[in-house]
């Protein structure tokens, strides 16, 4: 491929490089700090220790927070899937009054500042009299679970809806023509076709729930989630342990994104 080396192209490369550095350099520093062999962060770094990960693994409140975050995220995914997937089908296949408005409003919990969603949900749960710690220790608290589920349903709904819009309905007709009833058609033709979109959206919801602070802050009961636990620790300064925890979260998020993009690619390859 011929390379262009005019000043404009060079400028684009430099600005793009700067943007990426701005985004990724802090992440690299967090990772480096987590490997630094001293509780006081000072350059030059003494790299090569995993002791902060050891501290992390033995920090019971951190582990409890991590476990609460995972449970919360899994439950949020389940709720969002249970509501969002049928919702997407209704949007795709049925007409009802106010459908256009509904399709736009469904994104509202994502677009609104988390603080507003959080306050609204808090008022709601206190109105219906559901304690923020209800369900603990089975779950971090029903209100925060329901809050995450409700706020993230829109992600599933919009992603699955977008996939359904591209789905060739003739495939369902072909299945019906070949003696499959509606239920068999759904399980054998429709769902396998949209599965990558559903799983991708579920992974996205999982990471969004895992990182969420604003809504969680209002709804959390007795048990902190991992982001809130880190937030609390930060008041005492950035410790190497915080860096180690951040690195773990980063690794999990990265893994999820890689999985997600693979699913998207698989789906594209099939069309």
């Amino acid at each position: 491929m011929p390379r262009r080396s005019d000043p404009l192209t060079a400028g684009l490369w430099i600005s793009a490089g700067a943007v990426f550095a701005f985004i990724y350099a802090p992440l690299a520093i967090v990772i480096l700090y987590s490997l630094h062999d001293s509780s006081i962060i000072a350059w030059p770094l003494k790299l090569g220790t995993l002791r902060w990960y050891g501290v992390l693994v033995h920090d019971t409140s951190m582990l409890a927070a991590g476990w609460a975050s995972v449970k919360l995220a899994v439950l949020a995914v389940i709720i969002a899937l249970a509501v969002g997937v049928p919702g997407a089908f209704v949007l795709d296949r049925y007409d009802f009054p106010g459908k256009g408005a509904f399709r736009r409003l469904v994104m509202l919990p994502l677009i609104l500042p988390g603080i507003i969603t959080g306050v609204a949900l808090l008022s709601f749960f206190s109105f219906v009299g559901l304690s923020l710690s209800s369900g603990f220790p089975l779950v971090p608290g029903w209100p925060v679970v329901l809050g995450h589920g409700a706020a993230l349903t829109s992600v599933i709904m919009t992603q699955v809806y977008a996939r359904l819009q591209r789905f060739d309905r003739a495939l369902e007709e072909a299945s019906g023509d070949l003696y499959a009833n509606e239920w068999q058609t759904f399980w054998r033709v429709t769902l396998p076709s949209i599965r990558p979109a559903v799983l991708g959206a579920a992974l996205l919801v999982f990471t969004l729930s895992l990182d969420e602070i604003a809504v969680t802050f209002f709804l959390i009961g007795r048990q902190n989630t991992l982001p809130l636990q880190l937030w609390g620790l930060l008041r005492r300064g950035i410790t190497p342990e915080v860096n180690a925890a951040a690195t773990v979260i980063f690794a999990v998020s990265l893994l999820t994104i890689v999985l997600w993009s693979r699913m998207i690619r698989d789906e594209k390859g099939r069309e």
Partner: protein
Amino acid sequence: MTPIVELRGLTKRFGAFTALDGISLAVAAGEFLTVLGASGSGKTTTLRLIAGFDLATEGRILIEGADVAALPPFKRPVNTVFQQYALFPHMSVRDNVGYGLRMQRVPHREIGPRVTEALEMVQLGPFAERAPRQLSGGQQQRVALARAIVNRPRVLLLDEPLGALDLKLRRAMQLELKDLQSKLGITFIYVTHDQEEALTMSDRVALMRGGRIEQLGAPRDLYDRPRSRYVADFIGETNLLPAVANDRDPGMVTVAGPAGPIPVRVEVRADGVRAGIPLWLSVRPESLSVVAAAAPAASGDGAGNSLPATVREIVYAGSVVKLHLALADGTTIVALRSPSDPPFASGSSVQLRWPASQGVLVAD
């Protein structure tokens, strides 16, 4: 013999739009029936109602004497070959073809051999384990065909199955489909907008227009005895000469000539032809002979017609030469000649001749 498929007063309305306006049609077992029409004529709607993808607003659909109008597609003894094939992208060719058998709970040991047999019938044996996207358009078309015929339906519905293929492949597949149909003895109901395809393949053709059947008959009937101007124009190529009926002699009409109306003899008159409405004389290009203006009247052919015309353009098309001519009133006429015939110069005055039996008088 009872028809295998019978439509009675079938009507489909989408809101205020009437897609299908009370059509009735009986299809005999083993017949190759083509539903031909322009887009929006109701041909695909007809097929979708028979398959059960849409429900009729009014009327009955009988398959082997049983009314299926209220049944969902999976309870109807018909199979469909879709326009864009609609192959399941997440299944191999083999699984696509076996799908209908699995859904019918055919014993497992039977499915394998039947799928293999169907794939071999469409010459796709070696491609069984491929994914549909790894096949060419023509191959995908064959998979769609195999997926339908493996179920041994009594009736196969085909919705423009060759529409996405290029011309050469389409021609080859036309013959193959026709061959397959006579070998299997399955009734084909075949939807297309391609009149040539309809003429080539069908036992009978139903030409649709505006949600109604304009004419139903053997390809030859539609070509030789169109019952309206629309049919004459849609099927094949024809010349339509504005004609005026003669009140005294029903066998004569007049068409415009350079010095007033010229009488022309007509032996074939479509239904609905009467004096006082616009009429056309339909003459196929291959029925016209072109002779020099000064040539003597054709001898022996008492029923021969003759009309002066001017040569406008001469188009060489390989096996034939297409002559574009103009009548006195400006009507454009196409006539076919052999490249070995003596050529005419553009602008020369000529005589068009045709036997009275070759002209059909039609109304709109």
